[in-house]
């Protein structure tokens, strides 16, 4: 599903959460990056029809989200995983998914039950299908969350910070799952973990202060750090020039990777940047604009 966002604004009292967002999202996996408070969750909530915008246009497929009819039409094709998904502790995963399935309009009982079984298998919770949700860990709750988002085979999947709180293995499993789902869907992934976008998305956008700082291919964002990413090996303290992106202690000294317009040390060597370094270079080059 194609998403076209034009001059979208959202204010909460005197605080501007979105300040004229323009964005185009096509089929496949799209990563939305930004710091905490950048406006990612607000944008996701507007696209999920949970929150109205203050002004602007957001069109998903042929449906204008500024109207109730448009929001309902999108919600019929939507799978949404909120940032901090809540579940009813007194239900089992099977019951919770059945409830959400019914609310999504999956009336055929046999088909619904079959899909619930398949999704629980997909997220690795078949063995826990009959256990009450109140005893579930954060990771297990996330997995129930993604299962409910996939109910009804949605063509648009909006997942907000899905890997927060997951252990590394679960995070990788989850990322792979999302990637595999993006084949014939639009998957909008909001995160502040750059690695998640690097591993799954071809297209991305970066939000800061309610505005879009960058939109384009992941490789183009990475290229933002071309010529400004340095490696220094030193037994001494970290360089003061630029932003230290990583520091790995080895036998020959600590290997620092630094994003800086100038060499942070006389023996610094230019290296190929990663997406994380591209993101840091972009954030450094952006003039902070106060909002609110």
């Amino acid at each position, binding site marked *: 599903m194609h998403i076209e966002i*034009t*001059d979208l*604004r959202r204010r909460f009292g005197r605080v501007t959460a979105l300040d004229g967002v323009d964005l185009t999202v096509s089929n496949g996996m799209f990563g939305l990056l930004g710091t905490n408070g950048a406006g990612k969750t607000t944008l996701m*909530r507007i696209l*999920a*029809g*949970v929150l*109205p*915008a*203050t*002004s*602007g*246009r957001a069109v998903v497929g042929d449906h204008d989200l*500024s*109207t*109730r009819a448009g929001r*309902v039409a999108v*919600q*019929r094709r*939507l799978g*949404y995983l*909120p940032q*901090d*998904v*809540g*579940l*009813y*502790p*007194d*239900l089992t995963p099977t*019951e919770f998914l059945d*409830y*959400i399935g*019914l*609310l*999504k*309009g999956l*009336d055929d009982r046999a088909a619904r039950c079959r899909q619930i079984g398949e999704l629980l298998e997909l997220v690795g919770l078949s063995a826990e299908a009959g256990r009450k949700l109140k005893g579930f860990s954060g990771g297990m709750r996330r997995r129930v969350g993604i299962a*409910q988002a996939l109910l009804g085979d949605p063509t648009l999947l909006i997942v907000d910070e899905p890997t927060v709180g997951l252990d590394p293995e679960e995070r990788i499993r989850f990322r792979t799952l999302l990637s595999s789902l993006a084949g014939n869907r639009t998957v909008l992934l909001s995160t502040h973990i750059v690695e998640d976008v690097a591993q799954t998305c071809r297209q991305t956008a970066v939000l800061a202060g309610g505005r879009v700082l960058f939109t384009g291919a992941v490789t183009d964002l990475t290229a933002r750090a071309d010529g400004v990413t340095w490696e220094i090996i030193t037994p001494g303290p970290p360089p003061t020039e630029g932003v230290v992106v990583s520091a790995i202690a080895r036998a020959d000294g600590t290997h620092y990777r630094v994003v800086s317009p100038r060499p942070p040390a006389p023996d610094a060597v230019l290296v190929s940047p990663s997406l994380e370094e591209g993101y840091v270079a972009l954030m450094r080059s952006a003039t902070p604009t106060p909002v609110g």
Partner: protein
Amino acid sequence: MTALLAVARYEFRMQARKRSLWISAVLLGGALVVLQGERGPHHLPLDTPAREVVGTWALLFSILMPLAYGMLLADRLVRDRKLRVEPLLESLPHAPATRLAGKFLGGVAACGLPGLAALLIAVATELPKRHDPALIGWALVAFAVVTLPGIAMVAGFALVCPTLVSVPLFRVLFVGYWFWGNMLAPGLLPSLTGTLLTPIGDYAATWLLGNGATALFAGTPGILPFLRPDPTAATAAASVAVIVLFGLIPLAVAAFLAHRNARQTWPAKA
């Protein structure tokens, strides 16, 4: 329709599983049985008609058990926000009013369960000594006209009011209202006691007694005299209708506001 039934079904399931519902029902119902006094159903002569016996039981249980229902239903709507399920539910394509109606139906059904169980257990204790199978039929009638309308009114207010005041404050106010509006003699202080609006089921219970006596205060002179007609079958039916309709008022207001919010549009230009 599917969404309404789904919400009602799962709301019923979640509430009926709550231990606190059953524990409070057993404690309050049990206390009423033990402390019923000489006017209580246990002391009625053996030749008392079945409808009068059951009517007395139904009124006895209505004195305190709805307090438990009000307490338990008070967090049913606000807990969606507390549990952070609300954003997920709001992203689904059903109307918000459907969720509200489903919660109401599920809540009434779940609270009706201990109410019906209490009446049937009471009848089961009466059957061996009175040998009148009509007790069972009258128990169902009493449940429908005394217990259920009261639960419906309590549910309507208990679901919606805690969105305006906090849950603990609502609970305190509800207990105060219950004794003021149902059991405080109208001669002592101006109150709703004895009017068609008393969810304790005064008018319906008086009709069930059928012996010319008033169950509690139905029709006793007091403020709002137009709400205090003489207790008859017709006024009992009117009381049932008024109690249910009164309970639907907060739901209708909340549904209207939710519907208005859901229909909100926004301009393309700031």
